[in-house]
């Protein structure tokens, strides 16, 4: 049963991250996603310290605010401070992450949160903290992540058109009266909430693998946004299953195993696309001859 809950947790993270990741990728904001996932750390630590539990909603929102804050910070450094964009991202998130780690060290002993959790999550402990619904013992994290997943799907459902237009054609969006800024920050907020919620399962860094890799792999396979979203989620979920057994076989971190499988999927698809491309080239050459 434990294996089931762990894999389910992985799949839920894969769903929400896979969907949001597609939009980050298309907006060329992958590294901002990376920055957000690192930058929510101080928020999470403070939340732990204040409530001693992970699941209090107000503190969760507070932690998610840190994610939006860092995007504002990056933009301020870039626009007002005239710092080049990549350096602005680099400086902002390393500072926030450093503060987070320092806070963990300061509160060490008072908070049930250690550096390992930051680095690769504690997905293995998730089945032990359960919540009983109608006689079923369901892990608390699974319930929370299901909520996030439903929220993300709803967000994309409602905002699909607007996100599509603002991602591909900001000028058209302006003409249609769709606020680019609003959807930008809404997406950033969604990414923040998702990374905060995924933190316990996979940690602050491996969540980037779920945000970026399945979306990128799907992008190599299709040009259709809808298809890309489904591929991305499917790839993420299958990597969660494979990653679990891979890690179990090696007696290693499960989150790390899932990330490794995501990487392998990408390599396979990349090689496959390359082979297909060279075959097409040969065919084209032979018809010319």
């Amino acid at each position, binding site marked *: 049963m434990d294996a089931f809950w762990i894999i389910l947790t992985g799949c839920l993270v894969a769903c929400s991250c896979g969907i949001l990741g597609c939009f980050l*990728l298309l907006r*060329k*904001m*992958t*590294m901002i*996603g*990376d920055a957000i996932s*690192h930058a929510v750390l101080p928020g999470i630590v403070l939340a732990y310290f204040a409530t001693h539990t992970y699941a209090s909603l107000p503190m969760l929102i507070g932690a998610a605010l840190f994610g939006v804050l860092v995007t504002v910070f990056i933009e301020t*450094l870039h626009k*007002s*401070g*005239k*710092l*080049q964009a*990549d*350096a602005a*991202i*680099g*400086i902002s998130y*390393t*500072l926030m*992450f*450093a*503060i987070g*780690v*320092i806070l963990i*060290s300061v509160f*060490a002993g008072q908070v049930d949160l250690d*550096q390992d959790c930051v*680095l*690769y999550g504690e997905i293995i402990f998730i089945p032990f903290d359960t919540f009983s619904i109608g006689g079923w013992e369901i892990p608390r994290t699974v319930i929370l992540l299901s909520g996030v997943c439903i929220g993300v799907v709803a967000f994309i459902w409602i905002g699909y058109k607007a996100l599509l237009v603002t991602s591909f054609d900001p000028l058209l969006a302006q003409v249609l009266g769709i606020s680019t800024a609003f959807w930008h920050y809404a997406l950033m907020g969604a990414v923040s909430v998702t990374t905060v919620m995924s933190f316990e399962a996979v940690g602050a*860094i*491996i969540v*980037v*693998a779920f*945000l*970026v*890799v399945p979306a*990128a792999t799907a*992008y*190599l396979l299709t040009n259709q946004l809808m298809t890309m979203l489904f591929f991305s989620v499917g790839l993420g979920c299958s990597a969660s299953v494979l990653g679990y057994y*891979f*890690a179990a076989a*090696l*007696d*290693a*971190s499960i*989150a*790390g*195993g*899932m*990330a*490794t499988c*995501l*990487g392998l999927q*990408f390599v396979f698809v*990349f090689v496959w*696309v*390359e082979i297909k491309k060279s075959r097409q080239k040969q065919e084209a050459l032979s018809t010319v001859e």
Partner: protein
Amino acid sequence: MEQLIDFLLFRDPNVRWVVLGVSMMCASSAIVGTFTFLRKRALIGDAISHAILPGICLAFLLTQQKASWILLIGAFISGWLGLQSIDTITRRTKLKADAALGIVLSTFYGFGIVLLTMIQNTGNAAQSGLDKFLFGKAAALVQEDVITFSVFSILLILIVGLFFSAFRMIIFDRDHAQTLGLPIRKLELLLSTLTVFAVAIGIQAVGVVLMAALLITPAAAARYWTHNLYLMLILATAFAVFSGILGTFVSYTFPHMPTGPWIVAVLSVVALLSIAFGRQKGVWMAMRLQRRNRTKMLLENILKCMYHLGEKQGDFNQVYSFKALQAHRFIEDQQLKKGVRMLVHKGWIESLKEGIRFKEEGLREGKRIVRIHRLWELYLTQHMNLPPDHVHEDAEAIEHIITPELERELERQLQHPTIDPHNSVIPR
């Protein structure tokens, strides 16, 4: 305080090695980082540093040793592989650079975590301390490590020194480098390889996760103080070494504190202060310059307005009330009062009960502004073929900027004119 003195005087012989080692690491990252920063490829360092983790673990798994040079070789190989993967992905697929960075960063790191936890779970006693690579533990450096790192750092600095002018050229003027026949691709590969090297060394100080800061932040901070590449390198190195030593001190005083985050925190404070107060394009300097320009424009507009009124009456010695000035050109009450106060203080005008009146200096200045304005209008109509009713706006802006040299040049090119396109006299 006592601890600080102890630390600074190297009373603990270990401290000497630690400080030397950290300084070397920080210096080499800052130097290489300056080049990556200027090439606008700052985040490459972030991806490389995460990509190094599996190399360190594999090197340990294969040799069962923790000697720093073995781990360094492993780190270098996997960092280099990561770099090549990024390059391959961006060249061969439709994915953009940022996605390539994200893919390499997260999957290499994930694989590294698999290996690391695998090693930890085997219960091998020799592995303890391997996880220090994640956040850095400079305070635990021993003499042997420091010697290894110093050798590599010095090597790295020497190579940078040797190829300095070539690197400078491919950063600032790639086309020129190409025409000179420099092997650009090879040089760029060398620079990237050096970056991998610097990251592999620097990781000991700040760890995998925060290594990006050691590359980016010193260079970004230095950029706000100078335009000169030499000075920028020196400043970046100084910032990095200062932060490195301070961070190490904190970790030395409170042993449960990780070194990396403290170094990064100090470094970030230095960078934020530089962005705010830097001499070159710092926010505060820019604001001050803007304010000064705005004041200059206000004063010049008031003088110009007085001159126009005087010109109409044919008498520049009159007294003008604020109302009369505002009727000619609207300036807000508060602004006008402020401007007049400053002009009086300068001794350019005098303030009487009924209003204000030119003094000699002020009249000369007012005349100068009007002259430039009209010269520029004439220049635009004669040399740019603009119709006379289109030139006023432009002249309004330029009159505050033109220097005496430009003014003389304008007069020369227009052959010392007397009348502007609107038939007003150009005063002299």
